[in-house]
């Protein structure tokens, strides 16, 4: 099928302002959704769902969260891991107190607590930016991780210091805990991620998204136009942290099953940041591409030597992994700062005018 927009005229602004104005793109999205909802659970086995698909969705959501803050609003943060932790611990406390309420409600509510904490730690962003803001969010990260380790109340005074995810059902079907099947957890994660991605996409295409980008590109001019800097930045922190918080709760409840405080360490912050950078700053699609590359590539690489009949020690494979991912990050920073998403856009543009060079 040809990728062309010839003959697709928009006769009103509503049609022109659609997020996917080109028909082929809309069909493409529907196909992807059908594959994600039906194809993946049918074809992918338990291993694929638990190790590849569900984690990919969760990382992508966190990457969208960070991308709203860093890619769209231009505010750097290394607190992602901490904000994800807030979501997870809040969800855990809430489901402990109110076991009868549906767990999906508490996963989404966990994000609200993260949003509040994120906005609080975002307050310094009015005065400081760039490197100094990075350090401020780093402090938030360390403080939160300290709290997760040192406040036993957060993990219900459990001797091991971990969150143990209880079994919770939805319409009689277990969706968290040991008895929940990989397919159920995957489908729940997919529903949440699709819904929140849709909302995030609406947001960035409207007034609020434009005000974020304006602050990112030239905060002085934004102020002059009447955009209030502090509320705009705080809203970005809050919504970014909301998505990260939900992703954190999903990480524990739909993927890990139990979690120690170290899960929400600075490593997690960096992982999400790399996904955003490689995927593309200021692109929601990029968050998915970045999550796919950073999470899925190592799994594939691990599978390559055995598949080729090579007998390489697993520690060597891990080192190779780190080197390849590290090299990719540097390559992207140097050659394509807008990441995979920009490569995708360029490719699409070429396809649109093919066979002419431009």
């Amino acid at each position: 099928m040809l990728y062309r927009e010839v003959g697709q005229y928009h006769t009103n602004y509503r049609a022109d302002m659609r997020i996917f104005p080109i028909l082929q793109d809309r069909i493409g999205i529907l196909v992807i959704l059908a594959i994600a909802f039906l194809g993946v659970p049918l074809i992918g086995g338990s291993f694929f769902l638990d190790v590849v698909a569900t984690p990919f969705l969760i990382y992508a959501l966190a990457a969208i969260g960070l991308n709203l803050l860093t890619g769209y609003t231009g505010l750097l943060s290394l607190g992602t891991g901490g904000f994800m932790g807030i979501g997870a611990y809040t969800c855990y406390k809430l489901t402990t107190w109110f076991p009868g309420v549906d767990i999906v409600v508490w996963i989404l509510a966990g994000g609200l607590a993260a949003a509040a904490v994120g906005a609080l730690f975002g307050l310094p962003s009015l005065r400081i930016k760039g490197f100094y803001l990075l350090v401020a969010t780093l402090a938030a990260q360390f403080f939160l991780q300290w709290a997760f380790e040192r406040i036993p109340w957060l993990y219900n005074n459990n001797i091991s210091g971990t969150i143990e995810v209880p079994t919770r059902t939805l319409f009689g079907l277990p969706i968290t805990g040991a008895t929940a099947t990989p397919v159920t957890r995957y489908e729940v994660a997919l529903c949440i991620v699709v819904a929140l991605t849709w909302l995030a996409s609406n947001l960035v295409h409207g007034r609020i998204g434009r005000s974020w980008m304006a602050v990112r590109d030239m905060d002085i001019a934004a102020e002059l136009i009447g955009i209030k800097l502090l509320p705009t930045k705080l809203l970005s922190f809050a919504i970014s942290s909301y998505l990260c918080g939900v992703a954190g709760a999903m990480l524990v409840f739909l993927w890990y099953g139990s979690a120690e405080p170290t899960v929400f360490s600075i490593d997690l912050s960096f992982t999400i940041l790399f996904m955003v950078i490689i995927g593309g700053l200021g692109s929601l699609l990029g968050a998915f591409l970045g999550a796919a590359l950073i999470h899925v590539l190592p799994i594939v690489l691990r599978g390559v030597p055995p598949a080729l009949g090579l007998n390489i020690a697993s520690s060597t494979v891990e080192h190779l992994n780190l080197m390849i991912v590290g090299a990719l990050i540097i390559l992207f920073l140097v050659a394509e700062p807008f990441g995979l998403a920009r490569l995708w856009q360029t490719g699409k543009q070429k396809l649109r005018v093919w066979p002419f060079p431009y």
Partner: protein
Amino acid sequence: MTDASVNVAAGETLLAVDGISLRFGGVTALNDVSFDIKRGEIRAIIGPNGAGKTSMLNVINGFYHPQRGAIRFRGQNLTRMNPGFAARNGIARTFQNVALFRGMTTLDNLMTGRALKMNRGLFWQLLRHGPAMDEEIEHRRVVEDIIDFLEIEAIRRVPVGRLPYGLQKRVELGRALAMEPELLLLDEPMTGMNLEEKEDMCRFILEVNGQFGTTIALIEHDMGVVMDLSNRVVVLDYGRKIADDVPAAVKQDAAVIAAYLGVAG
């Protein structure tokens, strides 16, 4: 032309600056400057490099806070403006070195200019339906009219960072117009333009002033442009006001000629 300028000069004062002094450490950027801008006029501010013209605009829209002096806008007495207040009260501005949102498209830059007039909250923005969409479309119409007016239809979807300088200046004017300002401050809108682009820009400025009745304060180095466009001219030199009159009189003024010759010589 003379009739029009007489009428305007007799009109109501929109903005008056009174005894403004602004210092940066040892540098006196403005020294006891007073003048007024009447509703509906094009008021030029000229002077040699470093005379304090940009500083004056920065004081008017609240980027700089003068050590002394007062500003009266629409009869309201203010010791100092702040950028948000200026924006909400209908003062828009373009910059000497273009201050666009470089990563955003022309369309988005202009839509951002409507920020103050759009107020649908987070809930509807999340859904991008109903009232939020209606509001978006309503403002898109206004913005498209400005795009037509400035003849920038072809670059609607181009990120402005990739546009040539002349077009960027035009988009920046568009963003200021999207605010539907009462007072428009233009800081050298024609520098770096070729003759044709300058002519276009002059036409836009005259039309904005003539059709929408927007009051304009214009900084410009090109004397021909100033003589053609403006109703009255303020001349600054080393932060002091050395002349304030209609263009024909300013051109003859001995102090002005000396200031410009001093720079040339």
